[in-house]
């Protein structure tokens, strides 16, 4: 266990000792991985002491910036849970693990884990988020979609840390929504999860982004063909039905496992896509 004095100290240590040394943030995934013997790190670099440096939500030059160590409970205290445009964050929170983990897990860790159940990752994909990585060599910013390449695999060097998440503030007539369905309401992986960021003008879909827990890889991804089909069209149930019946199945591959069959997941993806779009629409129109 290495306890860094500050971020620079942590980066220098990681530079000398990674990949033998692994950064530990909230620990809600890593400690289970270690317990199950899937990861056997020689040294953990405890980032919990850097919270004062790396936990924040702020608006900077038209962007919203979230520090990597911000927990769901921290997010709940910010405008992201009140502004109707960002209520997708509240949706994620309500389905996120359980109260005893919402105080520990971090948004940077949620991305770093990079699994299909990374719900903040799914939502952030619809916000065209970028991630700022930092190492002793300096900082670089990469699109979230390029950073997360496969399940538990990031396009980042072991000596780099996720520093913050950046996405553009949403203009007028935009809103976000997120849905996850499983047997219970919380402590769930979700048979299917879906997030959307939608813009409507005079009943027309002027911008839409839809992300699922899985599209054709084992990580959250965008349903781009479906988005393209919907863009510029009237927001109507017929149009949405056409999108999920004719377009979505051409880009989505759903597999069966012990939780649910691929067939059921495909059907559920369609239904949840419709529901999440309706939810975002109602938010744009001033509803909940």
């Amino acid at each position, binding site marked *: *266990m290495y*306890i860094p004095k500050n971020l620079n100290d942590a980066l220098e240590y990681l530079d000398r000792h990674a990949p033998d040394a692994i950064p*530990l943030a*909230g*620990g*809600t995934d890593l*400690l*289970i991985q*270690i*317990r199950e013997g899937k990861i056997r790190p020689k040294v*953990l670099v*405890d980032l*919990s002491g850097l919270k004062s440096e790396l936990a924040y939500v702020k608006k900077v030059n038209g962007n919203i910036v979230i520090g990597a160590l911000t927990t769901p*409970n921290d997010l709940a205290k910010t405008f992201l849970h009140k502004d109707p445009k960002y209520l997708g964050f509240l949706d994620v929170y309500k389905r996120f*693990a*359980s*109260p*005893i*983990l919402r*105080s*520990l897990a971090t948004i940077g860790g949620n991305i770093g884990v990079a699994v299909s159940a990374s719900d903040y990752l799914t939502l952030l994909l619809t916000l065209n988020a970028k991630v700022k990585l930092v190492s002793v060599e300096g900082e670089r910013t990469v699109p979230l979609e390029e950073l997360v390449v496969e399940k538990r695999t990031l396009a980042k060097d072991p000596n780099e840390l996720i520093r913050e998440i950046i996405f553009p503030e949403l203009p007028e007539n935009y809103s976000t929504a997120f849905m996850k369905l499983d047997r219970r*309401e*919380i*402590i769930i992986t979700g048979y299917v999860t879906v997030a959307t960021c939608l813009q409507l003008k005079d009943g027309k879909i002027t911008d839409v982004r839809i992300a699922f827990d899985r599209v054709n890889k084992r990580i959250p991804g965008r349903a781009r063909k479906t988005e393209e089909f919907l863009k510029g069209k009237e927001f109507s149930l017929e149009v949405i039905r056409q999108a999920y019946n004719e377009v979505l199945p051409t880009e989505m591959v759903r597999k069966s496992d012990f939780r649910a069959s691929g067939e059921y997941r495909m059907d559920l993806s369609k239904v949840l896509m419709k529901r999440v779009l309706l939810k975002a629409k109602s938010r744009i129109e001033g509803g909940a």
Partner: protein
Amino acid sequence: MEEYPDIEITLNVNGKDYTVKVKPYERLIDVLRYKLGFTSVKEGCGRGECGTCAVIMDGELVASCMVLAVQARGKKILTLEGLAPPGKLHAIQKALLDTFAMQCGFCFPGVIMAMKHLLDKNPNPTEEEIKEALSGNLCRCGSYLRFIKAAKLAAEYIRKGQVYFEFKG
């Protein structure tokens, strides 16, 4: 395999400072139970799912099996032992007894801490808020409905200023 060296940390548990030597892989629950003797903290699943190890750390409800002891250095921790003065019952404990909520009781330490965390922030919670606050605490006996009753009753006691009760055994 070479053993890791000890790390000395200071924890404040139930208002008292303790300086202990811990291994880097020891969890908060291990130190609370086996080094400091706070055995109210129970281990259920050991992976943050069941809630029976919940304690309040710096005002936040956390799973003590998902925190390494080292990460809790310098933090203020409240366990069930610190809820009421010796020999007294806290309103939450009294309410749980009054509603006959206990069956096996293994989940109680976590449930009580979750209720305490809720009532500290929200002295008059709705049924929905109680359900949400207790949603991370599994009870295999299925006493959930009585937990809701008890939380309402405890809130009422506390609002009336009755925080501690005599324990009559």
